[in-house]
């Protein structure tokens, strides 16, 4: 019994670190984007202020049960990935509940939040939500294709689908990272990541200008607070997943922070210098060069 409580406490500590790092990283990225656009940008503590404000908002409306549950699913999705993902290599305490399932569990658990969020937003009844979701789902289908091939490729390379073992196999220096040993799989996955993170050119889903703020149009107060919490969390854990698979994982928190920052930065970097695709363009884009790279990555290991 004690073991479980200790385990939970360590997990909570991990969550605390990841969440705060996520908020900070988000603020930093927004600042970078602003500077590129010759704006001053938000102060770095803005996300915390937002959260406090949102959670303490007194006026709040609901459009129905599913609307209410949507954010719960969404945060559940982010938190679930966090729980099933080993964060720090070699750390018993920060491997969370990764013994319950392997990489496949994480890949499919991404959908948990997406689906719940999609349903919740639809229950709001706002047409823009549905438009955003249909675009998002459509784009997501092809985003996953190169990623799937990349995963197959590294599974063949390391002969495992256990994230801990994949990280273990990359230890011993830069030259053992998947980035070096399997550059094609890394390339395919990093291109997919652009679609996963939905920065430009793949941000029609959120369409920040035309559709006020995409699916969460109707969400506010604590609902939005939960969504923001999840956003911060999700960016870090998704980046951490890529870090584990392709960039040698992290043996301590500093390495974790640097690497997740760089992974996220990659999508922001591409975003600030790109225009936006129409949905049919982005859907087909992933089935061209990224798909070809993914296929090559698998062929090399057959």
């Amino acid at each position, binding site marked *: 019994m004690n073991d479980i409580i200790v385990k939970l406490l360590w997990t909570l500590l991990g969550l605390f670190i990841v969440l705060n790092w996520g908020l900070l990283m988000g603020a930093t990225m927004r600042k970078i984007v602003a500077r590129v656009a010759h704006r001053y940008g938000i102060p770095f503590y803005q996300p915390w202020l937002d959260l406090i404000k949102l959670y303490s908002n007194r006026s709040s409306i609901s459009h129905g049960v599913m609307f209410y549950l949507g954010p719960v699913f969404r945060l559940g999705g982010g938190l679930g990935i966090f729980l099933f993902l080993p964060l720090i290599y070699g750390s018993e305490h920060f491997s969370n509940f990764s013994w*319950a399932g392997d990489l496949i569990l994480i890949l499919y658990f991404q959908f948990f939040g997406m689906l719940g969020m999609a349903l919740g937003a639809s229950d709001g009844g706002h047409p823009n939500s549905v438009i955003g*979701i249909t675009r998002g789902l459509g784009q997501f289908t092809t985003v996953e294709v190169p990623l799937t091939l990349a995963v197959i490729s590294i599974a063949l390379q390391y002969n495992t689908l256990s994230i801990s073992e994949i990280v273990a196999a990359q230890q011993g220096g830069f030259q053992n990272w998947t980035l070096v040993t399997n550059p094609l799989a890394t390339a395919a996955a990093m291109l997919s990541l652009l679609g996963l993170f939905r920065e430009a050119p793949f941000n029609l889903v959120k369409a920040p200008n035309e559709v006020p703020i995409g699916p969460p149009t109707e969400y506010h107060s604590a609902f939005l607070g939960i969504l923001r919490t999840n956003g911060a969390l999700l960016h870090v854990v998704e980046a951490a997943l890529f870090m584990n698979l392709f960039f040698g994982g992290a043996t301590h928190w500093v390495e974790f922070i640097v690497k997740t920052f760089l992974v996220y930065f990659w999508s922001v970097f591409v975003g600030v210098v790109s225009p936006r695709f129409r949905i049919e363009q982005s859907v087909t884009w992933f089935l061209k060069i990224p798909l070809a790279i993914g296929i090559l990555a698998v062929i090399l290991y057959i």
Partner: protein
Amino acid sequence: MVGPLYIIAIALGTAFSLGFFKKANRNIPYAIMFLAIAFMTFISGQWLYAFLANQQEAIQIFTAGFQPPFSISLQMGLHEAVFVSMINGIGLLSALYLYEQFRDKGVQMMMVFILLFMGLNVIIMTRDIFNLFVFLEISTIAIIGLILLEKKEQAMSSGFKYLIASGIISGILLIGIIAIYYYNGTLFINDIISSNPLLLKGGSVAVFLTLMAIVLELKPFPVNGWALDVYESAHPGVGAILSAATGTAMLFVLYKITPFIADPWFNMIATIGIITFIGSNLLGIQQENAQRLLGYSSVGQLGLIMLVIGLSPYLGDNYLFIGFTLLISHFLAKAGLFWIAGIIKQKKIKNWSVLRKTPLLMVLFGIFILTLLGFPPFPSFFGKWELVMELSNNHQLAWIIAILAGSFLEAVYLFRWFGYALKKEIKETTSKIQFSKILPPFLFGITSLVAGYYTNIFQGDAYTINYLPLALVLIITLIDFISAKIKNSLAILAMAYYGFLTLPGLYENDFIRFIFMAIFIGGGILTLIAGYAYQGKRKGFYPAALLMFAGLGGIIEAQTTLQFFFAWEIMTFGSYLLIIRGKHSIKHGFSYILFSLGGAYLLLMAFGLMNAQVGMQISALSDINTHLNLIFSLLAIGFMTKMASLGLHIWLPGAHAEAESDVSPMVSAILLKAGVFGLLITILAMGAEYAQHSTLLYILGWIGALTALVGNLAASFQEDAKRLLAYSSIGQLGYILFAYAMATHLGWVGGFVYVINHFAFKAVLFLTIGAVVLRVGTHKMYEMGGLIKRMPLAFIAVLIGIITLSGVPPLSGFAGKWFFYHALISKGWYFQGAVVLFAGIIAFLYCFRLIQSIFLGQLKDNHRKVKEISIWFIIPIYTLIIGIMIFSARPHWILQPISEYIAPYFGRELTWNGSTAIAEMGYWNGEWIMYIIGVMFVLILGWLLYTNAKAQKVKQFNIVYSGERPFTPETTHIAHNMYAGYSKALGFIVEPYITKLWNNMSDAIVQLGGLTKRIYNGNGQTYAFYIIAYIVITFFLVF
């Protein structure tokens, strides 16, 4: 015992004496004639009984005490007794049936009638070839008399053509007989056989001419225009005689003279037979006139039996069994159908829907159609089975293909007709039906059923069929007039009893079969519960449903391929009846049955090939050692028609979507598993070593992957909720095909996860959507919306359903995905695997569309007062959901035994540690994932409730909308053409290329039929020319 000569004497005496009653009340001569025929029937029946009871040896009768060649000799043996009994039996019933005609036309018709039957009796019994000719003439003239008595212009002209044609044929026969007598010096058939005329110079030409004349009497295609005109224009009662009685007698003649024809000529007879069988069935396809269609069918059936006679050298001991079962089926069915045609008096087959006014006639019609087609449990089923088996044993694959092709064409028009009768609007009403007219077809219908049963008994122990489920179906058919609620309870009880009988044993002995049986019976009971929601009698539903479930159970229980095929056909027909019940299903039911039959014929071929090597035990399938690829391919394609794999899938969307609300889950969640089960036993029989290097399985893997892709993508673009689910089934079955084609331990466990899941969630989804459709009255998703407010329980059910479908943890769908990933990597099917995974993600599109368009978004004005779905749907739906939950939390309860079952076949790739599944590359613990996610979800919800407990509930249009408040749900609900952008990008993949391909093929066949039809120009002279040309051409081909 009364001697057979009395048959002739009575007939002749009656015919002459009838002349005295010309002026009397017509009932008197009718009674005399009827009694005479009854007595003739009695005599023949008495002989038949004696032969069957083994109390009698065959006897020869020589008239006037002379020996041949000076006497007319008759023979009465078992065969003759059977045939004269058949002839006199139909004569008796025809006399009854034609009562009105006799009253109308008077004594002349009675005389002609009784002479006709006298002629047919002698034709069968005679052993004198000239005597044969004489009585052939008598019956031909009598037939023409019957036709001409109709006194309609068309009948007159056709009767005259018949006269011309018969005259020429008789001439040829006479020349043949004269020549035989010239060379042999005898007319006594026994002597002709012993002296073998073929050895004599010129003797073969004599025999050839005789043979050709007899063959021409059987109306071979294409030299049969006059006969078709007669079938079309004569009174249906006469048509019945012409087809069943005359045809039967002539076949017996052909059988009688086979001993003295040369061996190579058997091939000629077979060729004539098959050309007739295929040709006239091809022509039947376009035919709209019921009686002419029956004419084509008659000609085709006679061709088939001619074919059997021609192939007799290959058929060994089973020759007579095959020939007779096919003949008796033709005899019973064709007479029955003609009689029905006479009762309802509808020329166009489209108008045969009036049959539905009289359920008994409808049932009889169904029985006769199935008898003709060789469906179980009718005699022709066993006949065709033996035919295929024997031909396989002799490596006559080409003949099998030709026969099955012809049978398929026959099925096309018979089922089109049957579909019209079942579904077309009823335009006219029938007048009151007389007892004398309905009795004959009724008796023949019963005889057909009984004959089927005894045919099977006759075959022996190895062929045993379990008739108990069919008996239950029969009972529920007989009580079809009572309230549906009672029938529903009885059906559930029957299913439960069947489950009680079978499931415990299967659980002990064969876990895989247990799983499928549990799905069939459990699923059957659950979907039947939904049937309580229906009011009224639901006529015809329960026989159909139970027939399907009886078939499904039979497939699992089958030990031999015959039992399997028997059950398979029963299941096919039952499901056809269920599918075609839908409002707009006439087309879909038709394409379903055609694909099913096509598949079934492939299975039949495979079973034949297998039988030639290792016999009929299903378990022996693994022992076959030649034609492996062919047999396995035939089986795989056959089963894939039921699984609706890509290319063979076009029947499914319509069939499933248009079916009734509780039928859709039956045919989708349950029925499709029959194909899966078949495929599974096929692959198990292949064994690991074959499977590993099998190109077939490799191709199946790709087909599975592409099916998944196309099915899921097409589902995403549907506007109709049930069509969406139907396409989703195609996609899901694609996964299953892919999983089993891998033939590895992991792949198969994954396949089972999919089978179980697909059963559960597709039943949940189809039941729920079906129940919603019953409430809102539309399938179109964009006409719904916001129903979560009105039907929360339905919403939750669909939510659980789509989470399971899409493979999102923690529900059991994820187990399928996990096994897939691991299996495809260990198998090395990376690219097809990637296609499957891609398809899996596309599934989100349609899942979202389904739930959003129906339940979320804007509630429509006309749905503001709809009620929650019926409790009778909620009960099975939530039972299934509980099942899904248990399977998700404790997957090892089912998967571990399956895993143990499979491991010996394909090698172990998976171990279980409690609830953790461990494969070489990774691990998964369904139980803990469930707990972790559950706890997490509750915590977050608690946090939200804590911070946001007082959220104010707002009304429908209270949304941020460019400063406006929308007020029409239609313009605010995003549902129609939902994935427009996605369709622009990838829509080209789901263009209906395959549908077009099939349509073009069927068009080509129809057009071929149209072209061929031109040979019938209706001109008697042309027909006469055909006869001569046919003989000349055949002569040059043979000699």
